[in-house]
């Protein structure tokens, strides 16, 4: 099959996927590719956007008031926190176990160097991309490293970084960002487990940061971390 036919085929498959027309096996195979193939992902998003105006003809209907109440009651019930902790624990535990094993094998000759590489990354960008920052997490040191790619806080204002853990009730301040270059922020151990699956956000605040402990100014950007 030529490359052109392949591309054509993927686009047709993406359309069928969006329409839920693939059978179970085809759908599973497509989703397996989708998890790693960014071009395929882009094809899917294009079809979602392309077809969504078809829903314009759908008439709105009023759901019963009870649904709204039930939703608001369901919010923030911690259900995923355990898995986040398990992930962090696994990362830390795995490193410790590996170190221990090497220590047993090589005795005192082994001096483990901590792995200081960035494991998760996120791009924080404002809607118009006038503000762009790249954030990375170094699990070994519980650090978030944030590098400004474009933009700074307006004169007389500062940018503050927040973590909203999955299922958490409120954002937690992680600290203020330098107005240029790189900022390194050490995440307190008790909230570190929520970083991987949570959302980080940057808000604009008065000098010294939010006076209330919650974001007070506009949200510049928000994002979730992905594996590097």
């Amino acid at each position, binding site marked *: 099959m030529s490359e052109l036919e392949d591309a054509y085929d993927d686009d047709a498959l993406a359309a*069928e996927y969006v329409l*839920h*027309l693939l059978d179970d096996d085809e759908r599973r195979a497509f989703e397996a590719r989708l998890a790693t193939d960014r071009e395929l992902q882009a094809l899917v*998003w294009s079809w*979602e956007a392309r077809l969504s105006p078809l829903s*314009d003809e759908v008439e709105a209907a009023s759901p019963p008031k009870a649904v*709204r109440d039930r939703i608001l009651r369901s919010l923030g019930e911690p259900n*995923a926190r355990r898995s986040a902790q398990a992930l962090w624990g696994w990362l830390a535990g795995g490193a410790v176990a590996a170190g221990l094993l090497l220590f047993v094998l090589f005795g005192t000759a082994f001096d483990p160097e901590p792995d200081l590489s960035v494991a998760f990354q996120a791009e924080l960008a404002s*809607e118009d991309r006038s503000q762009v920052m790249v954030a990375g997490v170094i699990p070994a040191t519980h650090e978030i490293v944030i590098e400004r790619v474009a933009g700074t806080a307006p004169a007389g204002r500062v940018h503050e970084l927040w973590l909203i853990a999955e299922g958490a009730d409120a954002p937690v301040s992680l600290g203020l960002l330098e107005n240029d270059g790189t900022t390194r922020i050490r995440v307190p151990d008790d909230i570190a487990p929520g970083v991987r699956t949570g959302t980080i956000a940057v808000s604009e605040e008065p000098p010294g940061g939010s006076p209330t402990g919650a974001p007070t100014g506009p949200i510049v950007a928000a994002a979730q971390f992905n594996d590097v």
Partner: protein
Amino acid sequence: MTTTADIEDIMARIKLRDRQALAALYDATSGKLFGVCLRVLKNRSEAEDVLHDVYVRVWEKAAPYAITGHSPMTWLITVARNMAIDRLRKKRPETGSDDAMSLVADDGPGPEAAAIASSERARIETCMGELENDRADAVRAAYLEGETYKDLAKRFDVPLNTMRTWLRRSLMKLRDCLTR
């Protein structure tokens, strides 16, 4: 009328765990999303369950919407439609549908968000108009009602493979027209 910019602002506040923002999003968009779920499921109580799950999902996973490049309304409709069709596919055959009359919108929806820009709507209508009538109907039935190739083949009384060929060709034609 809630504008796209209003909804974007609401979505940003939802990421910061503002419950009022989720309530505001619900008030601005639930009528449309309930309509989308009802159209697929044709059963009010199932559509209510899915609507609940959609907003809980939005609360838990508001962040990924930005990377899709979708407008918030496109993203919400996509999530609602996907969750409704997943439910439809799992539905056991004995679970019936409500009759058509009980599905008609009741006391009118509250203030609705501008769903999709009217220019986009006009474009897709023009392009759907370029397809043969029954093929455009097939695309609509797949998108709006969540029909399978099997359903569609039965509805249009053609073999399943023919249906698939038809629909794929129609979709490619639609894409070419929309990107023209």
